[in-house]
């Protein structure tokens, strides 16, 4: 629909409206009556000037000796219309607010849920901010549109139709004249709307850029100072702000031009009605009264047209927002929960099996190629490999955060894509490397692992993982607030909480992404001990960043460029002299300092 490289499958404005209403049935409920009320109330509003004019013409206009009683009928009619249309307007608005807020609240929730169903969320951290705005500011825009702009548009269109009907009743010839005057505007409106929509797209782009550069002197404050690049940074910020200013001004220019052309068309119509009215009148087809009446009627037409033009520009933003929400909801959830129709896994500790598994992101190269591997129940497996070797992808496939492009992942003998999420997640759990905590109490965070766990159960897990002393050191115990993203706790303590949370969830198969960031030694020790106890008696796969993890594993899988290149115990792989041996050598080099020192004071 746009002259800009037409995006495939981009919905048109009307299609957005239709689809949007279909997605929020609450908005459609009783919409017919609301629209009728809207048109009635505004038509009532525009009838008032006519009634007043009649009053003036029939009473006041005659001048000499008019009594109030002569015009009382008109005045009461006018009063009645004012009151009734006011009440109708109130009724209409309340209906509209309630229906649209209900519909949009549902849309918000649906979009939120859908975001969680999309695996892209776990893949791309940078998109998260954008996704938040889908369920917040985008929907706010739609609500503004439905409650103010949209209804005004409908009303204006209604008024245009009514005005046209009244004009045609007076003179069809002059009605055609008026329409012809507005034809160029009507035709170019589509063009203006497209230009505007593009101009706002550009504005949005510059806002993103500007926010990014404004963040530099704040988030990067220390780097800016340390490298003495204040001036350069200011220039970048100024430029970003400047581009945003320019884009906004360009969009304003379009808005102003659009409004102004509607005004010029109105002037043209006025002039044409006078000229043609007189000409047609003189040929005997129209009376003078009709021509004069018509000249005033044009105003009834021009007003709503101008309103519709103004509203159209505002509508572009709302449509764009609605489109983004709809496109989000229309993105198919790539990892589908078979739900109740799915099978359940058998009891007992299970192993896992990858059968001919290949994975590639859409349009990308293979990240993981032809993986065939079986992990026995209770086996403790370490995965090693460089960044980009495919080890994280392996972990995500195993927990069904993603589905393989080719091949099957099984737990026991069951294809995990056939298992309901509910059941699957009782059995297999991914513990991410940096323990993400929610801004709530420690207790709330632990309950994420098991909703209905009793307090004693929580404390018992601290005990079991050997964290009782750490727990005892928390002044407020389970009621400790962990802060945003858990920032009131140290990185190491966050890991501890994540481990307790996982232990509560009590899965039989744990997939662990080992933390890389350094934490203080005491916490490190605690975490290591807790982890050991957590993994006891379970199957586990750990993405290893440390020598000790690989050394202590039952089995090491080595990934390189998307392939499983080595598989064996630590000792076997060191002897093999391949990728793992090389990795091991660099680990040893790091640790060598400690090992070749005479230990004077053995711990």
């Amino acid at each position, binding site marked *: 629909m746009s002259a800009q490289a037409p995006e495939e499958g981009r919905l048109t404005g009307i299609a957005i409206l239709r689809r949007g209403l279909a997605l929020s049935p609450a908005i459609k409920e009783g919409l017919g009556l609301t629209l009728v009320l809207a048109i009635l109330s505004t038509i009532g*509003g525009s009838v008032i000037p006519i009634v007043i004019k009649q009053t003036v013409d029939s009473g006041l206009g005659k*001048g000499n000796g*008019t*009594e109030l009683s002569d015009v009382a009928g008109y*005045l009461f009619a006018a009063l009645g219309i004012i009151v009734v249309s*006011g009440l109708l307007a109130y009724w209409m*608005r*309340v209906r509209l*607010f309630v229906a649209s*807020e209900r519909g949009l*609240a549902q849309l918000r*929730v649906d979009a939120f849920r859908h975001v*969680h169903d999309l695996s892209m*969320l*776990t893949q791309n951290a940078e998109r998260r*901010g954008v996704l*938040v705005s889908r369920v*917040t500011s985008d929907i*706010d825009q739609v609500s503004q549109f439905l409650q103010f702009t949209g209804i005004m548009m409908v009303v204006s269109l209604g008024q245009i139709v009514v005005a046209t009907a009244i004009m045609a009743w007076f003179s069809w010839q002059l009605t055609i004249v008026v329409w012809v005057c507005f034809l160029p505007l009507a035709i170019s409106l589509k063009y203006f709307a497209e230009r505007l929509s593009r101009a706002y797209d550009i504005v949005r782009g510059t806002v*993103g850029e*500007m*926010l990014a550069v404004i963040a530099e002197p*704040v*988030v990067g404050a220390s*780097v800016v*100072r340390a490298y*003495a*690049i*204040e001036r*350069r940074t*200011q220039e970048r910020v100024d430029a970003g702000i400047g581009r945003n200013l320019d884009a*906004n*001004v360009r969009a304003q*220019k379009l808005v*102003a031009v659009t409004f102004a052309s509607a005004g*010029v068309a109105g002037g*043209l119509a006025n*002039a044409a009605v*006078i000229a043609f009215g007189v000409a047609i*009148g*003189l040929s005997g087809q129209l009376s003078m009264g009709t021509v004069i009446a018509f*000249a*005033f009627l044009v105003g009834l037409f021009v007003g709503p047209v101008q309103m519709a033009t103004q509203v159209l520009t505002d509508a572009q*933003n709302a449509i764009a927002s609605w489109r983004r929400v709809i496109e989000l909801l229309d993105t198919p959830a790539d990892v589908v929960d078979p739900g109740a129709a799915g099978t359940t896994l058998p009891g007992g500790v299970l192993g896992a099996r990858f059968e001919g598994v290949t994975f590639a992101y859409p349009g990308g190269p293979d990240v993981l190629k032809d993986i065939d591997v079986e992990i026995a129940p209770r086996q403790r497996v370490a995965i090693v490999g460089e960044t980009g070797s495919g080890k994280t992808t392996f972990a995500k496939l195993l927990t069904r*955060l993603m589905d393989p492009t080719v091949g099957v992942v099984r737990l026991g003998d069951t294809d995990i894509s056939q298992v309901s999420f509910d059941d699957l997640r009782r059995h297999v759990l*991914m513990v991410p490397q940096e323990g*993400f905590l929610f801004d709530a109490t420690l207790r709330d965070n632990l309950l994420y692992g098991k909703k209905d766990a009793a307090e004693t159960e929580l404390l018992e897990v601290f005990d079991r993982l050997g964290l009782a002393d750490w727990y005892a050191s928390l002044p407020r115990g389970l009621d400790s607030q962990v802060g945003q*993203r858990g920032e009131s706790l*140290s990185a190491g303590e966050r890991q501890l909480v994540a481990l307790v949370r996982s232990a509560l969830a009590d899965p039989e198969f744990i997939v662990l992404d080992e933390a890389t960031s*350094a934490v203080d030694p005491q916490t*490190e*020790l605690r975490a290591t001990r807790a982890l050991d106890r957590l993994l006891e008696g379970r199957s586990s796969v750990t993405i290893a960043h440390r020598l*000790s993890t690989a050394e*202590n594993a039952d089995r090491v899988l080595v990934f390189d460029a998307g392939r499983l290149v080595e598989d064996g115990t630590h000792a076997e792989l060191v002897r093999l002299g391949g990728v793992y041996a090389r*990795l091991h050598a*660099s680990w040893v080099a*790091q640790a060598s300092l*400690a090992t070749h020192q005479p230990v*004077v*004071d053995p711990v």
Partner: protein
Amino acid sequence: MSDRTTAEPASAAPSDADERDLGTTDHTHVTGRGFALLGQGIREQRFLFSLSVIGSVLYGAMTVADAWVLGWATDHVIRPSFARGEIAKGALAGAIALFLAVAILRGLGVIGRRLIGGVVFYRLIADYRRRVTRKYLSLPMAWHHRHPTGQLLSNANADVEATWSVFMPLPMAVGVIAMLVAAIVAMLAADVVLTIVGLIVFPALFAINVFYQRWLSPKVSYAQSLRGDVSSVAHESFDGALVVKSLGREADETERFTKVTHELRDANIAVGRIRSMFDPLLEALPNLGILLVIVLGVGRVASGAADPGDVVQVAYLFTVVAFPVRAIGWVLGELPRSVVGWERVSSVLDAEGSMAYGSRTLPGGGPVALDIDGLTFGYADGDRDVLRGIDVEVEPGKVIAVVGATGSGKSTLTSLLTRLVDPQHGAIRVDGHDIRELSHAELAKAIAVVPQATFLFDDSVRENVTLGGDFSDEDVWAALRTVQADGFVARLPAGLDAELGERGTTLSGGQRQRLSLARALVRRPRLLVMDDATSAVDPEVEQRILKALAAHTADDDGPTVLVVAYRKATIALADEVVFLDDGVIADRGSHDELVARSADYRNLVNAYDHAREVES
């Protein structure tokens, strides 16, 4: 449309504190401060603002003129033409010309009011964003430490916008005041008594508006704060998506989100109910006024006190002015928001202090001698000094490692070395010169720091390394080679020109850290400060980087190095180790010596790499 509505999260979610402030702000003071703010903005953009007001007045005048031309055309074209049976050509041409002239002038009015008015608004926010960011760049780091990042970003974005948002309806409101004055004068000329009716109706409109705003604004603030809650829940939930997904908590999260969403919905509906009542009322009032004018007018005409034409004119003036009068209400409605925004913006603009730099340059080249002498530092809000009496001397070209547990003061030491903060006591000297005497540029040239947290600019790889400095591509590649980043950079589609950040390439934590290292190395600093700068790098790659760094520092003109280290591999680079414990130097010497004589040190350096072994 302002960019408030299109901005992504940083400004899309106004902090709820902001809105709560609004709810409690004293309204009587708000109006005074609000008008002062209006005056300030008008003064700063006086030329364009005047144009926009002229545009607005022109628009209003042309709206009235339109009706006048219609009357003129009726009297001079339609009636005479029908009377004479032929078109009054001259008058017709005149009417057409008048209609078009009015339309064009009204178009100009629209351009003045909408376009120039918009430009005033956008210029003000651009200007104040620049002022705020300029301030951010000059205020000392200590000030930055005291203010949360989110707040500073919102000061520069949402708050600046809130401050000036009142300028969107302002030109129209000022134009309306002009129209109102003209209308009242015209009414007075027509009929004094009827005008008094008008003078009753307008204040009533005004009063209803004020009452409306006050009744509504706490409800709007409440809805706004709920909007903030909805945004935070979504933010947090999407941030923790991996946890939510792997623990199978999607349904519970949806429930949590549904709860705040429903609260917001109900709050919005409550606001909507009030709006539903007031909007029709505000529309009906002028119409009722007109009826009143007619009722009284008929009586006055009957008693001969007024001409019918005068009554018609007063009634007409009413209809013209009634709707635009609401623009004044919009301005008054926006004022509290503007005042709250301005308070937040001015808290930044009024902040004082900056880091004073000297003017000295360092003579010579090559590595410098570092002398840290009796250094004591405490944060303003801390109970206790973070570093106490630190003395360290490093010979030119040597590498010193600083080792210590979390909170021992290591990172603070690196901040002091680059003067992000200054010590309360003691001094840092390079080649005998106190770093406080050095010019800012010289300091940055001589001492390069690689911080613990990597910060990359939303820019190309090249610019992220050079930071606008004059370095050849060979220099850049050499630095990238040293930090083992040449491989992945070469593989990027655009190489050195590849854009990083939101719209560009996404790098892993280790890759980002390596670019940050290259940034320091490319400048060939005379003192290199690294704060746990390889923590996110794969061990094997780290090993290669450290080897290359060792070769680099062993050069005759390689830098003196101070490195904060956790891992033994990094410590291995050092000629000497300083062991920090709780803000004081607990011990120093070679790694071997420290391992031999300090149990604390041994525990610390062993913990990370061999936690398991230590335990068993």
